[in-house]
């Protein structure tokens, strides 16, 4: 995965989150405050403004730039969470001109690690973590099977999608949705959904 591949990934994320802004906000309405799509779209539009200058950066700095931009423009819970995730992902990719499958997995692990370090959530709390954790596990499993980078990303994305769907029956115990208690059950978590979209974009670009 070169810095060009990485930039294509990031550009694809910006497109997809923009297309899905209304959908994510709608998911955030019954169990949140109806802004997740607006927040993510605002963040990645700010990121888009930096794409020109990012072309010359290596993967690590590209990811760090995204992280810093999200921290500075998203706000809400998802800003610090995804911001820290991309910052950690960038650190994991430090010094690499091109990432092989193992590097990408390390990068994804750091991404998840950033979300957990910042938000202190475990799986089963109806958050992004419920999409990202199975994705990281699936990617490791795939690597063990020695599949291609694309195949690995595809499985990670599928695992994230299942994890996202699995948030529907969960009772939220973190974030805004937890205030609803029992009423949070039966709704898909918006953050888990944006996490899946981000990984789906990866599978589309590597």
């Amino acid at each position, binding site marked *: 995965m070169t810095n060009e591949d990485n930039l294509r990934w990031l550009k694809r994320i910006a497109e997809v989150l923009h297309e899905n802004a209304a959908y994510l906000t709608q998911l955030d309405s019954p169990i949140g*405050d*109806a802004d997740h799509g607006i927040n993510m779209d605002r963040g990645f539009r700010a990121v888009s403004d930096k794409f020109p200058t990012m072309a010359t950066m290596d993967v690590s700095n590209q990811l760090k730039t995204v992280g810093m931009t999200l921290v500075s423009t998203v706000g*809400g819970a998802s800003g610090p969470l995804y911001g820290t995730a991309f910052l950690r992902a960038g650190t994991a990719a430090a010094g690499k001109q091109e990432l092989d499958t193992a590097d990408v997995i390390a990068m994804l692990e750091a991404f998840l690690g950033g979300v957990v370090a910042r938000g202190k959530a475990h799986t089963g709390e109806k958050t992004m973590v419920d999409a990202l954790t199975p994705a990281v596990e699936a990617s490791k499993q795939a690597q063990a099977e020695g599949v291609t980078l694309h195949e690995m990303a595809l499985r990670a994305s599928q695992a994230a999608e299942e994890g996202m769907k699995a948030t529907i029956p969960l009772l939220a115990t973190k974030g*805004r949705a937890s205030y609803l208690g029992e009423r949070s059950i039966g709704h898909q978590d918006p953050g888990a959904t944006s996490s899946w979209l981000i990984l789906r974009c990866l599978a589309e670009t590597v």
Partner: protein
Amino acid sequence: MKKLINKPEDVVKEALAGMLAAHADLISVDIEQQVIVRKDAPVKGKVGVISGGGSGHEPMHGGFVGFGMLDAACPGAVFTSPVPDQMLAATRAVNGGAGVLHIVKNYTGDILNFEMAAELAQADGIEVESVVTNDDVAVQDSLYTAGRRGVGVTVLLEKIVGGFSETGAPLAQVAALARKVNEHGRSMGMALTSCTVPAAGKPTFELGEDEMEIGIGIHGEPGRRRVKLASAAEITEMLAGPIVEDLDLKSGEQVLAFVNGMGGTPLIELYVVYDMLNRILGGKNIAIARSLVGNYITSLDMAGCSITLLRLDDELTKYWDAPVHTPGMRWGM
């Protein structure tokens, strides 16, 4: 969506421009970065007191910037916590050498962003203390939630702590009083209607003509439960009951009673609720020594109200009564 706005994405900045134009004698506003700072900041030797949160709660927080209350406020996008950059800029702008207090409402977004801002400010060598408000009795403070939300008590805390900060008290004492105010206060809110986030364009949730939400927050989130519409007397009982119980208010104690409107409810109804509250507390021989009735911490155009009770002692009463001069609250000067 029926609102007095232009483009949804411009609402916050245009409202800030309006605030600046209307209150240029009290505040200066960085409209680009969305930071409202007290005109004479930084006040030498005074602890800087700042807060911030999503927009849509006006007059909180920006309307409380001025003498005797906040030194700065950072409004985020509607219902979205501001970003660390804003909080850092505000912290720097109000640091008069005595350090800065961050007043944070307990929402994951506010907590995480203020956390990052505090780290950055401390890296700058600015002494920062953070106080989290979590007064909403509608949420059980347990492992199974992100903890109680910070709501109505935040307004009272900003007034009382801001008043105390004018005495030049050190940061540790200012923070201690803030924690005490939070300890002494509890709130609960309800909604007759949803609100409409400008960028979303439609109501956050749908409510039947004969339904209401009990135990709402301030971001248009649905409440703890949806029940049949009830009378002002019954609603006031539903809100005041849990508060009195949780605060364990005893006969003979004194409180500040705060009846707050959610933004779309007119004053005449808030006074009806205040009358009901006054009767309920009177029945328990709890004395209302101070009161506040009006729209102070709102959820855009939501119809509904919240009740906050603050257990008073001489110290809290003294700094509640202290002079204040902000766009949203003013007395004694």
